[in-house]
Structures are given as structure tokens and as C-alpha cells.
């Protein structure tokens, strides 16, 4: 079967920018995304918004339409609704598309799976009605669906963004409960001079906060001890702020305290990973061009470490130029020349990111469950107490804990509990997260049926590939 020069998994800003650069450079590219439309998290449905007026979502969102249009014009083999579940270092990619199994081969692989939200395991977080802020974003952008009278709780720019978007749309908001610890403001001060070099970004953030304040919705700061009210479904949020107890009734609570890379793809490929102590998450090891511990596998965007949408787009471009060099389309000197402006731009953005990471660093009490009854593993219903019992029986690393307790064995394959399990085992043993490690993952990265496997199709690269070779 004719192989593609490069297969890209994920069509967010990173994957789209990379695909455009690769196609321009003469490479034969295939792009897969499990979403029904391209755009990734930030530009979800940006080219075909179901909202009567998408401009309320802000210019950062509407800017996505141009990138999507450029991507759609480029000569790229693309699959949406395509979930990649096996990536081999032999260049084999298996994915589900419209209920069928597809296979393609590639010489270079670029992983752009993006980020997911950091789970927020407060008591009651598994009750219907509790969702992430990202879920509110997705529902708004893809389906124009909103929740009236919701409580938004947590910390970080994406939390304030959705509240502002709701308010602009005239959707009533019950309260914004901010969990950013008081101490974080002090800790972030030394990084402020660096952040000020990107004064525009800082101004944008401040304008958002002012906009929310001006709307006059109830706001609480320095909130602690969050707990979802309700037995069978969410009925509200309980917390303390400045020593005062509060209870706000609502059937919808949206939680958020930052994002972390989607790990399952890079982990299942057994690529080298490292713990990022600033962002408190695992990320794949990659060089300045996104090349991982397996040379023909690169990673770019938030899936390789959180850098935001603009950073993701640049990182995708840099990875593509390096891949063009590896494929023999660009000399080393030409690659270095063409990547220099992007690398400089990424370096210039780093201080602002570091400032955000410090300011919105989530408190330990929200990252790791505090109540013994709180579920860590939503799929297998394993509580903090169950995991502690497994630890007491001798489980010292995530894989041992998994075989003892079934934590991480369910359909999400550890996507929700993985970071918590690393964190808990690290805390219990007073060891750094690197010493504890992460789950060992294997393909397939999703639940499959025999029926689906049996409907099999090979996807050869278009003949034009031969000309490029």
C-alpha cells in the first residue's frame, strides 16, 4: 500500500498549521480528527457556527475561520469523525471512521491531540449536572446549547472566557466561584515583568475580568472546600470563601482549573515523557521541532505541553518544516532559516505562559481528592479510600494499583484518573512524580467491537505521492 509522507492526528490549530505547511512543501499528507468538523478545541465549528452571531465568542475564535478555510483549500487527504486508536512506530495508523476500521501507512507521524481539562475531584463531581467548563464551551460552539443559571467554579482564563461569553449572550449565570488561592497572586509577582512584554495578552485578560465584574453577577474569591450538593443529581455548590460558608442552588455546575495534554496517544506509543512541575502534568519529551524519542514521530501543540492556541499553531508549523527536512524536501539550512521566526515567537511567548501557570496553579486540594468517599476512577467507581487500601496492600506504582483495585481499567483508560493516581502515590510515598510514573498503556486506545473491526478498508496515499518521492 502506498504510504503517506506524513499522517497528522488532530486538526486543531497545531495539526491544521502543520498540514498546510507540509502540503505547501510538497509532502503527501493525511489528517485525521475524531471531531465531526476540523478546528480543534478553540476553533470548534468556527467555520460553520450554529449561533446566530458567533462574534460574541470573541475575535480569538472567529480568527479560526481563516485558518480552517486555508486548511480546506490545501491539498490534504482528510478524515473527520475519524478516531485514531492505534499508532505503530512502523508507521501504521488504524482508525475508526463511520463505523468502519481504516488503515493507512506513513513515513512520518505528527501527533497533535491537544489538551483535556484537568479533572476536579471534589465531592459529588460524578453527579449528573456537573460538567467541565470545556464542556460548556463545546456545547456552546458546536450546538449553540447553553445552561441557564449555572454556577461556574474554579480558576484560570478559560473559566473567565466562558462566563463572559454567556453574559454577552444574555444567558443568566448564578455565580462565579473563583478558587485561585490568595498566595498565587503573590507568587506570580516575580514573573510579572516578563509577562508585561506581552502587555496585549495581559490587557485582554483584565478586560475580560472587568467585563464580568460590570455584569454584576455574584462573584466569590479564594473559595475553598468545594462540594456538590445533591444525592442523585447536582442541586448546587457548597464552599467557603473568606471564612464564610455559602450554598448556591443550581442544577448545573461547570468546573475548571486548567488543562493538561491528552496523554493516551503518546503514552500508548511508549514515547519518553517527563513531569512538568510548573504545569503539574506529564508531557511527551520533544525537541525544539517536536521530534520525540522516536525520530519519525513528532508532537506539536497542547498535546505536547500546554502553550495555547497561537503557540500550537506555531509549533505545528515548526514540526512540519522539520518533517519536510527529514523527508528530503528542505535542506538543514533552509529548515533553520524558515523556523527561526517561529522559534523566536515561541520563546517570546514563554514568559507570559509561565506567569499564567504560576497565577492559576491549582491548589493541591482541588487536584487530589480530600474526602475518602470521593471517586478517583469514575469508570470503575474507585474511591480515594479504595486506592489507599490498595496502597496499604503494597501497590506502589500506578500499574500495581490498577491491577489491585481496577482503578484506570475502565473505558476512559485512565484519562481522568491518571494524573490523580500519580499525584496520590507521589504524596503517600513522599516521592517525586517521576519516581512514581504513569499507567502503561497499549492499543487500542478506545473500546472496539468485532463488528467494527471486520469492516476494514485500506487507505493508500494518492498517486501524486510518487511524484514527491
Amino acid at each position: 500500500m502506498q504510504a503517506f509522507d506524513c499522517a497528522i492526528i488532530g486538526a486543531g490549530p497545531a495539526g491544521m498549521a502543520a498540514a498546510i505547511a507540509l502540503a505547501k512543501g510538497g509532502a503527501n499528507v493525511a489528517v485525521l480528527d475524531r471531531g465531526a468538523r476540523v478546528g480543534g478545541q478553540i476553533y470548534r465549528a468556527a467555520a460553520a457556527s450554529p449561533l446566530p452571531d458567533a462574534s460574541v465568542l470573541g475575535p480569538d475564535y472567529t480568527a479560526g475561520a481563516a485558518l480552517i478555510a486555508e486548511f480546506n483549500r490545501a491539498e490534504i487527504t482528510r478524515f473527520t469523525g475519524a478516531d485514531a486508536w492505534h499508532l505503530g512506530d512502523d508507521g501504521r495508523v488504524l482508525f475508526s471512521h463511520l463505523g468502519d476500521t481504516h488503515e493507512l501507512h506513513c513515513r512520518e507521524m505528527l501527533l497533535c491531540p491537544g489538551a483535556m481539562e484537568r479533572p476536579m475531584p471534589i465531592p459529588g463531581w460524578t453527579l449528573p449536572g456537573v460538567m467541565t467548563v470545556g464542556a460548556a464551551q463545546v456545547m456552546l460552539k458546536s450546538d449553540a446549547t447553553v445552561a441557564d443559571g449555572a454556577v461556574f467554579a474554579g480558576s484560570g482564563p478559560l473559566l473567565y472566557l466562558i462566563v463572559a461569553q454567556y453574559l454577552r449572550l444574555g444567558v443568566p449565570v448564578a455565580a462565579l466561584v473563583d478558587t485561585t488561592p490568595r498566595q498565587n497572586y503573590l507568587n506570580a509577582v516575580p514573573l510579572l515583568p516578563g509577562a508585561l512584554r506581552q502587555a496585549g495578552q495581559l490587557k485582554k485578560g483584565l478586560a475580560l475580568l472587568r467585563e464580568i465584574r460590570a455584569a454584576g453577577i455574584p462573584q466569590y474569591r479564594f473559595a475553598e472546600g468545594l462540594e456538590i450538593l445533591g444525592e442523585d443529581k447536582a442541586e448546587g455548590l457548597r464552599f467557603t470563601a473568606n471564612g464564610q460558608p455559602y450554598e448556591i442552588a443550581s442544577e448545573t455546575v461547570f468546573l475548571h482549573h486548567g488543562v493538561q495534554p491528552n496523554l493516551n496517544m503518546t503514552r500508548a506509543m511508549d514515547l519518553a515523557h517527563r513531569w512538568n512541575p510548573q504545569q503539574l502534568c506529564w508531557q511527551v519529551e520533544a525537541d525544539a521541532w517536536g521530534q520525540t524519542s522516536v525520530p519519525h514521530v513528532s508532537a506539536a501543540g497542547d498535546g505536547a505541553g500546554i502553550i495555547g492556541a497561537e503557540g500550537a499553531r506555531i509549533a505545528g508549523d515548526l514540526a512540519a518544516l522539520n518533517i519536510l527536512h527529514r523527508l528530503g524536501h528542505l535542506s538543514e539550512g533552509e529548515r533553520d532559516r524558515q523556523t527561526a521566526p517561529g522559534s523566536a515567537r515561541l520563546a517570546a511567548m514563554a514568559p507570559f505562559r509561565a506567569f499564567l501557570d504560576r497565577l492559576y496553579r491549582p491548589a493541591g486540594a482541588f487536584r487530589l481528592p480530600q474526602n475518602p468517599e470521593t471517586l478517583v476512577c469514575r469508570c470503575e467507581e474507585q474511591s480515594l479510600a479504595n486506592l489507599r487500601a490498595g496502597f496499604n496492600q503494597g501497590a506502589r506504582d500506578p500499574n500495581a494499583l490498577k491491577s489491585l483495585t481496577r482503578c484506570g481499567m475502565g473505558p476512559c483508560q485512565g484519562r481522568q484518573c491518571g494524573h490523580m493516581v500519580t499525584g496520590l502515590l507521589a504524596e503517600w510515598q513522599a516521592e517525586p512524580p517521576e519516581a512514581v510514573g504513569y499507567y502503561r498503556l497499549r492499543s487500542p486506545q478506545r473500546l472496539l467491537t468485532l463488528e467494527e473491526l471486520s469492516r476494514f478498508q485500506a487507505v493508500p496515499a494518492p498517486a501524486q505521492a510518487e511524484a514527491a518521492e
Partner: protein
Amino acid sequence: MFRSLRSDSAPKITLTINGQAVTAAAGQSVWSAMVLCGQPVTRRAALSGQDRSAYCAMGVCFECMVVIDGFPNQQACLRQVAEGMTVATQTITEDRGAPDAGL
């Protein structure tokens, strides 16, 4: 309460959710169609039987697994509605006797 801000001009399709006939906009996710018709429970947890509902809406928590046209373990947040589709709350999340799905 969830509601839709969509303009009424979007083409409509009809599907069945837990026996209830529901009209939804073409292109909408199954999850949105469920929550908009007041049926947010996607599955029941395997051990406790507790009601569960979509948490992430982006394909990474697997809380939204429903039965679609007889096939279990379908993520309602990733699937789009289709004419004549039948959707049901899932009561078994996995077969404990079966080998682990890929782990």
C-alpha cells in the same frame, strides 16, 4: 436548564430517546439532543447503579456512553443525531467477564 440558541431555520430530524420522539437540529450531538429534551442520564454506573451524565463533552471521560441503534458504548458527545436513530440510556457499562478492552 439547558436550552438552544440556534435559529429556527436549521433543518430538523426526528429520533427516539428512551422511547420519546424528539426533534433535533441536523448536525447536533446526540448528547445535546438528550439534554435539551430533558433526558440527561446517559448511563448507570456498573457497580452502584448511580445515574451518570456527560462530564467533558469532548470524548475523554466516557461518561456519556449510550446505546445507539442497538450498539452499546457509543459516546453521545461525539456522535451526531441522524434521522430515525434510537438512543437509550446504557445500564451495563462493560462486561466484567470479558478481557480488558485494550489495557
